[in-house]
């Protein structure tokens, strides 16, 4: 069964009153929704709040979900819109959230101190570069690079033409390249070698 068909079956079960169907949808989508939110709002607590709000809204609107769009696309659209609203409300606090990325339980168990420092530096650099993008550019980069969505899906999520996605992604990558230029992959490798040596 394809993901779309599987999702529609769960939606139908939910409409029939099966609560476990909604739980299954939550377990399936909570992680990607959280990850998008985490890249968009840059604080673990805020991202968790946004994820909960997304799922509450999905629960309210699911009886009216027509099934013409993919559930994933619809759900990500709600996520991005909430994140954009959130970012607009918290725009003054946006730069304070980067270091919060480091407090999260992301470290693999086998990671040594040097690797941990390197990973934290890299995470901070990339988070800051993404954070500098305008909110809609940031949303498109997150959906493309970290969720690997096709441009067609991104255009549906963002409510714009596919051509706009192409142009916006091109502009976003130009900015990211400039922000990340001092930290290119060769530089990162050198820093890593230096830390070990």
């Amino acid at each position: 069964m394809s993901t779309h068909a599987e999702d529609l079956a769960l939606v139908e079960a939910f409409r029939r009153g099966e609560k476990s169907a909604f739980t299954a949808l939550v377990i399936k989508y909570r992680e990607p929704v959280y990850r998008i939110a985490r890249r968009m709002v840059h604080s673990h607590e805020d991202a968790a709040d946004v994820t909960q709000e997304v799922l509450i809204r999905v629960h309210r609107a699911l009886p009216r979900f027509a099934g013409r769009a993919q559930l994933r696309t619809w759900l990500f659209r709600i996520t991005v819109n909430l994140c954009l609203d959130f970012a607009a409300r918290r725009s003054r606090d946006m730069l304070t959230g980067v270091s919060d990325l480091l407090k999260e339980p992301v470290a693999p168990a086998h990671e040594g101190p040097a690797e941990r420092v390197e990973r934290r530096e890299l995470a901070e650099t990339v988070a800051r570069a993404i954070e500098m993008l305008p909110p809609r550019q940031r949303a498109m980069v997150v959906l493309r690079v970290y969720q690997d969505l096709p441009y067609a899906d991104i255009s549906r999520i963002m409510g714009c033409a596919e051509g706009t996605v192409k142009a916006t992604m091109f502009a976003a990558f130009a900015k990211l390249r400039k922000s990340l230029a001092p930290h290119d992959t060769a530089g990162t490798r050198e820093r890593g070698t230096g830390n070990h040596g």
Partner: protein
Amino acid sequence: MNCAGVRELIVETLSGTTPPDLRRAVETHLASCPECRAEAARLEETTQLLRSAPDAHLRDEHWDVFMAQLAVRLEAEHRRPWTLVRRWFRNPRHAWSTAGATAALIVALGAALLAPTASPVESDLPPDTAALVELVSPQVVEGMPAMNASLAVWKAGLGAGEVSYELIGGR
């Protein structure tokens, strides 16, 4: 395909999954264009850096707390009055009863709005008597103890109907 068009496609091919024909078209152009090839190499560096930043993962215990909080919020959602009303209207079994109740309400409201308004002053007196009440003041009652006896003469003079003196306030 010109270089400007290809550069947008380079971002698309490097940043995620791309249809094979699009990838082939870009590769064909890159094979013959050193400027675009250099641009693609720089963009690939950027993409690799973005991808190498680890994604946020939550441990299972975080998700346990998350699910518990979500369950509480969903339970609160179920108890919200508008949710109950919406659920009632969504149930097909309630469609006819809801339609009937709505129609009855509309008829009742219409009848209440269109009905003739009642007289503002309720009175037990016969219609022609109201004007006489003002004439029978306490002084008149005191000064005319035998009013009943002379009422016939008075009625004949004023053209009033058959009204007793007691009924309009006399003794």
